[in-house]
C-alpha cells in the first residue's frame, strides 16, 4: 500500500468514526472507550510480536486511570494531566519490566497477572484513599485552558483519542521496522540466536515492555477521563483478558487491528448486552473460537481479503 493511500485510509477511518458519533450521539461515548482500549491493545500486540502474552496489562490501564483521577485536583488541565498519567504508567512498566522480562511464555503471562491482581487488591482494600469498589469520581478538568460543557468535552475526548490512536499506531510501525523491533520478532523465533548476535534479549523485550505500558497507560488515562469515574475493576484480570481478546479479534498482523477489534468488540458488547444480557460472554467466546479456528488473522485479515477480492474482480 502506498503512503498516500494509507494517509487517505486513516483520515477516512477517522472521518467515519466522527460521522457515526455525529449521527448516533450515544455512540460517541462508546467509540471513545473503544479507541482507548484499542490503545491498550496496541501494547498487547507489541508483546505478541515477541511471542509473549501479558495477562496483566490492565495494571497500566488502571494505574494511569487512577493517576488521572488523583492528579486531576492538582493538575486540572487535560492536555498536561494525560501525558503525565501515561508517563507514570510507563515508569511503572520500567520497574515491573526489569523483573518480568526475565521470564517467558506462561511465567511471563502469570507474573503480569499476579502484579495486576496485587494492584487490584490495593485499590480495593485501601478504602480510606481509594474508596474501594465505589471508585473515584474525576473532578472536571479544562481542555487546552478552556472550560468545556459536557457535549464539547465529549467531542474533545473523542478527537484526542483519534489523534493519539493515529500517533501510537504510527510510532509502533516505526518501532517494528527498526532494528530493535526486528529483534523483538527474533525473541519469538529463537531467542538464543539473538543473543549469539550480541543483542540482549532482555533489553529488547524491556524496551517493548515499557512502550507497551506507555500505550496501555495512555489508553487508561483516556478511559478514565472519558468515563470520569474509575473503579478497581479496571485492574481486574478480566480487563486484561478483554485486551488480549480484542488483540486476537482485530488481528495481530497490523497496527490497525487493535482499533478495528476494539470498535467491533465494544459495539457487539453494547448490543449483545442489551439483547442477551446473560449470555454475552458466551457469544464472545464463540466469536473468539471462530476467529482462531477459521480466521487466525482476525478482522483485519478478513477485511483485507474482502478488499483484495474486490480489486481483482
Amino acid at each position: 500500500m502506498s503512503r498516500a493511500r494509507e494517509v487517505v485510509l486513516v483520515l477516512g477511518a477517522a472521518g467515519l468514526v466522527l460521522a457515526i458519533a455525529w449521527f448516533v450521539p450515544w455512540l460517541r461515548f462508546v467509540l471513545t472507550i473503544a479507541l482507548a482500549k484499542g490503545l491498550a491493545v496496541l501494547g498487547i500486540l507489541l508483546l505478541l510480536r515477541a511471542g509473549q502474552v501479558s495477562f496483566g496489562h490492565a495494571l497500566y490501564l488502571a494505574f494511569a486511570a487512577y493517576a488521572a483521577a488523583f492528579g486531576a485536583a492538582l493538575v486540572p488541565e487535560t492536555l498536561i494531566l494525560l501525558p503525565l498519567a501515561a508517563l507514570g504508567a510507563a515508569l511503572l512498566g520500567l520497574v515491573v519490566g526489569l523483573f518480568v522480562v526475565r521470564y517467558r511464555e506462561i511465567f511471563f503471562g502469570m507474573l503480569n497477572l499476579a502484579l495486576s491482581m496485587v494492584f487490584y487488591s490495593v485499590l480495593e482494600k485501601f478504602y480510606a484513599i481509594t474508596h474501594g469498589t465505589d471508585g473515584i469520581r474525576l473532578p472536571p478538568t479544562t481542555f487546552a485552558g478552556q472550560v468545556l460543557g459536557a457535549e464539547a468535552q465529549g467531542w474533545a475526548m473523542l478527537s484526542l483519542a483519534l489523534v493519539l490512536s493515529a500517533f501510537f499506531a504510527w510510532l509502533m510501525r516505526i518501532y517494528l521496522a527498526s532494528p530493535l523491533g526486528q529483534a523483538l520478532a527474533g525473541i519469538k523465533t529463537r531467542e538464543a540466536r539473538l543473543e549469539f548476535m550480541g543483542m540482549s534479549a532482555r533489553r529488547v523485550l524491556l524496551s517493548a515492555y515499557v512502550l507497551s505500558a506507555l500505550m496501555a497507560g495512555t489508553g487508561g488515562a483516556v478511559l478514565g477521563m472519558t468515563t470520569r469515574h474509575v473503579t478497581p475493576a479496571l485492574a481486574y484480570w478480566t480487563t486484561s483478558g478483554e485486551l488480549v481478546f480484542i488483540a486476537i479479534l482485530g488481528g495481530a498482523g497490523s497496527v490497525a487491528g487493535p482499533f478495528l477489534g476494539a470498535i467491533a468488540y465494544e459495539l457487539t458488547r453494547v448490543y449483545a448486552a442489551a439483547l442477551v444480557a446473560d449470555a454475552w460472554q458466551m457469544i464472545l467466546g464463540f466469536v473468539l473460537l471462530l476467529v482462531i479456528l477459521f480466521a487466525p488473522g482476525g478482522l483485519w485479515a478478513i477485511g483485507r481479503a474482502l478488499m483484495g477480492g474486490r480489486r481483482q474482480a
Partner: protein
Amino acid sequence: MQAWLSENTLLLGLAALDGLSYAATVFMVAVGLNLVFGVLRILNVAHGSLFAIGGYVAASLGLFITSRGLPAWLSLPALLLAAVLTGALLGPVIERLLLRRVEKQEPVLQLLVTFALFMILEDLQKLLWGVQPVVSDAPVRLLGTVDVPFGADVIPFTAYQLFVVPGVALLTLLGLVWFLRRTLAGRMIVAVTEDREAARAMGIDAARVTLLTFSAGAALAALGGALASPTASLVPGVGAQTIVLSFAVVATAGLGRVEGAAVTALLIGLGRAFAVYFEPELEVVIPYIIMVAVLLIRPQGLFGVPETRRI
C-alpha cells in the same frame, strides 16, 4: 511473641485446619492442570470452569438425593460420580473438538482457545444453575463435627473437612505417583511429557495418551470442585478464582511436578488461611506474593528443572 501465641492459639489452630482442607482442594485442581500441561503443552484456562462444573454437578446430585429421601451416605459416592461424569463427558469433547484442532497452532492461540472455552462455560453455568448460590451440605451434616484438641482448647471442626477432603487429596497424590511411575499407562504419559517425538517413535499412541490425560485432568478438577461444594457455596465466578489460584500453585511449584504441586498447594493454602484470620486485607494477594517471591529467587519454580536452551 509468647503472649501473642498463647492469646491466638485458637485462631492459629482454626487457620491451620481451614488451610489444610483448602489446600487439599487447590491441590486437586493444580495437579490436574499440571498433568494436562505436561502432555498437551497448553495451560488450560478452562480448567477452573471444570472445577466449578464438577461442584455444581455434585451439588445437584446431593440435592436430588436429599429431595428423594434417599439414604444420606449416598451423597459421598455422589461426589466421585460427579467428577467421573464431568471428566468423561466434557474431557473428550473438549480435547477432540477443540484442542486437537489447534495442536499445530502458535502457543498463544492455543491458550486463547481455552480462554474462549472458559468464557463459554462460565455463561453455561449461569444458564444451567442460575446466579443464586447453590449449596448441598448433606456430606457435612452426615459426618458431623469432631473436637480437635489444640493446646488447652478444643476446636469443633467438621469431620468432612478434617478427614474426607485431605484424605481424598492424599489418596490422589499417592495414587498418581504410583500410577505415573509403576503402571504402563502412567509411564506412557511421562514419556509423552518428556519427549513427544521420541515417545511416538517408540510406538506410543500419543493422540490416545493426550485424550486420556486431558480427561483425567478434567476429572481431577471436577473432583476438586465436588469436594469443595458441600462447604463452599457455588456462585458465578468461582471458576475464575480457582484457575487463577491453581495457576499460581503450578507456577510456584514448577511445571510438571506432582509432589511439588502438593507442597506448594499446602504453602499457598495455609498462607491464605492465615491471612483470612489475621490480615483479611491480604487474602486475595497472598498466593501472588508467595508466587512472586518464589519466582524471584527460583525462576523455574520451587521444584522445576531449568530448561536447556534450544539453539
